[in-house]
């Protein structure tokens, strides 16, 4: 299993901060989610970090066992 992490408002959409999902290509993972959540996670302004490293090409992501993929909305700090 892999772990998805939802930051900021994505947590509200997902109904929780994290979710365990089976591995595989990201597109295949997303279609198993609720459609509103999948849409929110797919927005252009959402950045992704795989195991703590920012990923620029989301199409290249294939989740393996133990991977952590974080969905990062625009920041609003300080």
């Amino acid at each position: 299993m892999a772990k998805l992490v939802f930051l900021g408002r994505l947590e509200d959409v997902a109904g929780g901060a994290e979710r365990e999902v089976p591995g595989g290509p990201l597109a295949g993972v997303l279609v198993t989610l609720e459609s509103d959540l999948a849409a929110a996670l797919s927005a252009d302004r959402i950045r992704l970090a795989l195991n703590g490293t920012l990923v620029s090409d989301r199409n290249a992501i294939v989740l393996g066992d133990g991977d952590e993929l974080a969905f990062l909305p625009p920041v609003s700090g300080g």
Partner: protein
Amino acid sequence: MPSSVLADVRLLTESFDAGAELARFTAAQVEAGGIASFLGQVRAGGGVEALELRHYGPLTLPGMEALAAEAQRRWTLEGLLMIHRSGEMVPGDPIVLVAAAARHRRDAFAAAEFAMDHLKSESWFWKREKVGGQWSWIEPRPVDFEDKRRWDAAG
């Protein structure tokens, strides 16, 4: 700048005493002619009952450390302090404290302001506010990006 000067960069999940932190930092900066600082705090009186900042462990503190290193690269500093809260805060609580010590006043001011502009616009924090008992997530403000862009040309 000499990279041997360590920056004190912290991400705290509990409240902190900004005055005590600044006093401790200042006491160690005997060779600095000046110390510029900025304290950001949860404003009272704006109707906000509470404020929460969330961070993402693998990115947030490393990003702050990279920002501190960049400030030290750009200006000649004797010391740099950068403390940022995560978690829930109430009006009057400190959110962020930045202090830069330098021989020259201009370096201290510029480094502190640079750090604040980037903490606001680039650091991995997500904010929500509680107003009238309801929490809502805060979108980034365009002005924060403009503040950061001021530095892009300055190399």
